[in-house]
């Protein structure tokens, strides 16, 4: 029983990490159809932001709190810049966005290497987040994982509010569903695109801050996560926030339970096979966007 509870918590915490890294992609890939291979590098930018802030602000706790909004802005600005420089010229050619952003991702990795050096770096977590809460018996809830879980849920909540309740959210949804109609209704679609990209990339930056709590920061850290992020978005159903949330947690729990009963590599293989099987059965993913278009 202890094992089941412990592994469930572990699975949920892996799911929270998956959700955080996939959340931004749900917007940029899911809503806008841009295959942004540089998403992982926005995660990296967020992580390095934490590192830089920790160097200049004393107190790991304070610098972490400051890092969250700053990383959102830094990664968001990088995303908006990328959109303005390159992606807006490629909206009709989704496959080209893949190649272009992959090139950008390689350049950003090299840039990070030049600025911060090739060796990976670490940040110190605030003492509070290196502790854990014992919940009777052998069950412990690690504080850093709880923090990440809270952060992920907060981001989902924030994103839902923005998309559902704000004028910007309404415009984003309008552009996604019918760009031409939105345009003739007086929505500045270009600006909406840039804002969508800003938010999506900013969320990647927040994910980067969270990842500094569990591992090292390096130029290639984003590539470790980019495939997982795409998997979550595709399995969840492209553009479906709800789908991404459920998929992230299901994959997390599945991964942790399998890993416990087998080995790391076997668990990875089984999860991938399960995903392939699932997509055979439901190619459109868990949820689909109902539109009138024939796409």
């Amino acid at each position, binding site marked *: 029983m202890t094992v089941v509870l412990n592994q469930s918590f*572990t699975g949920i915490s892996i799911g929270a990490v998956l959700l955080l890294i996939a959340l931004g992609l749900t917007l940029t890939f899911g809503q806008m159809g841009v295959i942004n291979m540089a998403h992982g590098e926005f995660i990296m930018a967020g992580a390095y932001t934490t590192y830089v802030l920790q160097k200049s602000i004393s107190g790991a706790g304070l610098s972490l709190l400051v890092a969250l909004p700053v990383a959102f802005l830094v990664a968001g600005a990088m995303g908006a810049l990328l959109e303005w420089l390159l992606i807006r010229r490629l909206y009709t050619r989704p496959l080209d966005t893949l190649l272009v952003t992959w090139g950008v991702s390689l350049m950003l990795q090299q840039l990070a290497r030049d600025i911060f050096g090739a060796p990976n770096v670490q940040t110190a977590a605030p003492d509070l987040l*290196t502790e854990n809460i014992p919940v009777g018996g052998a069950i412990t809830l690690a504080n850093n994982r709880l923090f990440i879980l809270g952060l992920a849920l907060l981001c989902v909540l924030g994103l839902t509010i923005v998309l559902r309740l704000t004028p910007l959210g309404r415009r984003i949804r309008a552009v996604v569903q019918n760009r031409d109609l939105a345009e003739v209704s007086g929505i500045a679609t270009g600006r909406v695109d840039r804002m969508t990209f800003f938010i999506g990339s900013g969320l990647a930056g927040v994910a980067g801050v969270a990842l500094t709590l569990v591992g090292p920061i390096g130029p290639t850290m984003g590539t470790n996560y980019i495939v997982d992020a795409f998997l979550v978005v595709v399995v969840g159903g492209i553009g479906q926030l709800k789908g991404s949330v459920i998929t992230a947690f299901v994959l997390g729990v599945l991964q942790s339970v399998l890993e416990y009963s087998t080995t790391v590599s076997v668990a990875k293989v089984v999860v991938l096979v399960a995903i392939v099987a699932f997509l055979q059965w439901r190619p459109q993913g868990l949820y689909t966007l109902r539109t009138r278009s024939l796409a």
Partner: protein
Amino acid sequence: MSGLSISRRGLLAGASALGAGAALTACGAKTGSTEASGSGAKADTSGDTVKVGLLNSLSGTMAISEVTVHNALLLAVKEINAAGGVLGKKLKPISQDGASDWPTFAEKAEALITDDKVVATFGCWTSASRKAVKPVFERYKSLLFYPVQYEGLEQSPYIFYIGATTNQQIVPALDYLKKQGLTRLYLVGSDYVFPRTANKIIKAYAKAKGMTVVGEDYAPLGSTEFSTIVNKVKDAGADAVFNTLNGDSNVAFFKEYKSAGLTAKSLPVLSVSIAEEEVKSIGTQYLEGQLTAWNYYETTPGAANTTFVKAYQAAYGKDKPTSDPMEAAYISVYLWKDMVEKAGSFDVAKVKAASGGIELDAPEGRVTVDGATQHVYKTARIGKVGADGLIEEVWNSGKPIKPDPYLKGYSWASGLS
């Protein structure tokens, strides 16, 4: 917009583009070096200077560790030159960057031997890079001095192994754990040659000596998700963890270890790939009290070490720690110098013949070259990470241990290969 339906195909294309990228990287490094068959590359000893090759990863994922080794090699060369050189000739170091990429190591090794005509080469770190350059040094009959502890079970006539082999590090570490009554071990390692081989040896030892291996897990190199492995460790009822993780995975592992509430007191971890440099970058708060097994620490007592640490910090900065592989690299140049002077020649065959019995009062204590295996007698040391980030010795073998790369002297190890 119409992008929605095409996106999934786009994703697949993305995946294959990534695959193609990996393939390109793999072929980019040409394998032609193995085809060349000129063994006539003679070292050039005609001038006032002779060239020595320094082959380390100065970029890429291994740079963090290998740059320090490179620094230590340069320091030794500088000191030897200041003292008059070798056989009256000054040494000219030629640095090549292996770039953490094994085919590149092979290429650069060949360039050092055939283009620069070096008299000897010092370097490599991972077993993969050593395995990649081994045939090159053997084909050209040129010498490599290798400075890092490794998994043993290898012997090349053209490599001198200056780091520990398993019976000088892993076996003493197991002896130590057994003596402490820590007999139920959990093995955690990175998924590649060194940890897999090391764990094979550990399991054979455990079986023969009444220890129990209660679990064994491997994470891919560079993996940063350790929550489940740490849960398994916690549930397995182990007395200690034997850690053969390499590189950055240690950061994630020890962060997870601490947040799961495990400590050096409740469940000690003995690591064989974490030295002073790594302790500093992982963070002392995660490692304090944990155990390591090496042959040298910055805190090892003795005049030779005081001199070494002082010289290193004078050259590279007061806050720079020294570590076991750096020390081995540093003494490897001196050992080579002594071999050459004993032989009275730079000729490889003569240097090899002269190598047996060469002794040195090294920072780690007395070392002696074993001519038969081309390994070195070394003292094993178990250390504990202190609050200051340095490692304090808690046990040593008392005298240098004879190298036994194939563990022939251990009956329990028969059948390992």
